[in-house]
């Protein structure tokens, strides 16, 4: 077995990993290594050929591959080594990584590790859609891969279940490629994608959206022949008598993303049941010292720019850890309160400026988001609208949480 020693090992070469690697290098880590399972760097951005990436970072709307290339260029300029076609099989508490590669098994001893494995799609099995098992049922991301990277026509008459951003982007993409998108079907009473994607992907092409609906049956033996839709009640149960059969040959699923945390769990790192990602402190450090996490493996993002920014932070923190710089002192717990689905990081020192990332449970207007400790609001911000599809960030200055022990982030009517 080949053995290597590195300062910072980056698990995954997508947007989070590239940013983390560049930042680790710039912050003094001498020996950084990116380990990527796929054939090239860049991860999912390879297939995200639509525009809208980089508005926060570069002030321009780039396509996924262009956005990604700017980071790959920096990896090359900084001479950061990477392994492709190489999969991390195990990470131990002592930060020893076991990697399967074309050269055989590699054991890597890392002073610090950054988890950047991203997420994967929820499938039909996980949402238990009844019916037959014909060809023509794809997750939206798989369809995106087939169309954008391989040039396949995946179907002519398409129904999309779920209004997540990838589903909306694929509704437009399929229409541009000459297919007919008959319906986008969403279980919730609101879209789970960004409002801008509702406008430019559905409204622009007159694609109908069925809110509070689901697919109750898939028909067809060899190939999808039709799906049955039904309206759902407030407990998401199909309402009898509302069924509607739509003839189609393809069903796309855009029903959520799951952070890919098998390595994390096997390492014994504490995972937050709501985000599906590691529990972290303000240095992006997990429950195992020296192991950090960022990007979609930590919590699913809606905008890649924020993934890159998180990677940048985690890379810096990992570099500092590898150099033996001061560790975090003090502990203020942060937890979600009424109206809030989750808040990150879960642990703060109160002695550094920090950026909280959070999501709300349902859409609302004119709200007040408060950081409450023992009944007292340590900080409050106002928002004209909030939406579960949009991650919210709150800047907290050092000192604002002075004397706090446990912060509950709550959503209240702001009027």
């Amino acid at each position, binding site marked *: 077995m080949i053995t290597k020693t590195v300062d910072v090992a980056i698990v995954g070469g997508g947007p989070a990993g590239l940013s983390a690697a560049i930042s680790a290098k710039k912050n003094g880590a001498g020996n950084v290594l990116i380990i990527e399972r796929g054939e090239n760097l860049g991860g999912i951005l390879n297939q995200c*050929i*639509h*525009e*809208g990436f980089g*508005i*926060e970072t570069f002030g321009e*709307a*780039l*396509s*996924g*591959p*262009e956005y990604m*290339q700017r980071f790959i260029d920096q990896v090359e300029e900084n001479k950061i080594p990477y392994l492709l076609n190489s999969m991390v099989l195990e990470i131990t508490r002592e930060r020893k990584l076991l990697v399967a590669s074309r050269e055989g098994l590699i054991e890597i001893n890392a002073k610090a590790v950054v988890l950047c494995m991203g997420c994967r799609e929820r499938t039909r099995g996980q949402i238990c859609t009844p019916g037959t098992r014909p060809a023509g049922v794809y997750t939206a991301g798989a369809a995106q891969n087939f169309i*954008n*990277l*391989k*040039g396949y026509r995946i179907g002519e008459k398409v129904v999309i279940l779920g209004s997540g951003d990838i589903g909306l982007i694929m509704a437009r993409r399929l229409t*541009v*490629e000459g297919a007919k998108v008959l319906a986008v079907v969403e279980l919730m009473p609101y879209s789970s994608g*960004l*409002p*801008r994607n*509702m*406008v*430019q992907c559905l409204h*622009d092409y007159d694609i109908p959206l069925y809110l509070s609906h689901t697919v109750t049956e898939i028909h067809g033996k060899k190939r999808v022949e039709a799906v049955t839709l039904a309206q759902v009640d407030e407990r998401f149960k199909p309402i009898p008598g509302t069924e509607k059969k739509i003839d189609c040959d393809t069903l796309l699923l855009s029903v959520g993303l799951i952070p890919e945390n098998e390595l994390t769990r096997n390492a014994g790192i504490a995972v937050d049941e709501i985000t599906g990602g590691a529990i972290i402190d303000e240095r992006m450090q997990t429950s195992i010292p020296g192991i950090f996490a960022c990007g979609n493996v930590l919590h699913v993002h*809606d*905008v890649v720019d924020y993934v890159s920014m998180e990677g940048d932070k985690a890379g810096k923190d990992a570099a500092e850890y590898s150099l033996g710089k001061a560790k975090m002192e003090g502990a203020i717990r942060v937890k979600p309160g009424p109206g809030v689905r989750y808040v990150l990081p879960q642990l703060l020192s109160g002695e550094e400026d920090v950026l909280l990332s959070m999501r709300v449970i349902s859409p609302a207007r004119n709200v007040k988001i408060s950081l409450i400790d023992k009944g007292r609001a340590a900080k409050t911000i106002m928002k004209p*609208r909030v*939406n579960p599809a*949009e991650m919210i960030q709150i800047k907290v200055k050092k000192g604002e949480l002075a004397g706090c022990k446990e912060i509950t982030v709550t959503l209240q009517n702001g009027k």
Partner: protein
Amino acid sequence: MANKRYVCIICPNSCEIDVEYSGKTLTKISGQTCKRGDEYVRKELIAPERGITTSVPVRGGSIPLVSVRSSKTVPKELLPNLIAEISKVRAAAPVKMGDILIKNVLGTGADIIATKNVPRKQA
């Protein structure tokens, strides 16, 4: 006089912008939080524009397709014609990010440019 609410598509903030207009003249605008939102709605009212992204086949490339986009936004009503025009194009490897595959497509002033590097296929 008529009212309309737009959702700005320029950035992820998705600002809701309310306008009052008569015919194609904007008389009142509110809700935009930056200059780009203001510009977007003014264009959207008179002559909406969109960028286009798709991909075209590459001969002899390491991958079968190269992703492309318009170098600037084009009139929204021309999108179907543009898609038809782009579908006629075949690129040949190597393709470099930024290469122009169609110059001034359909007289719009926009070029169709590659958004990915596609090197030659290794023999």
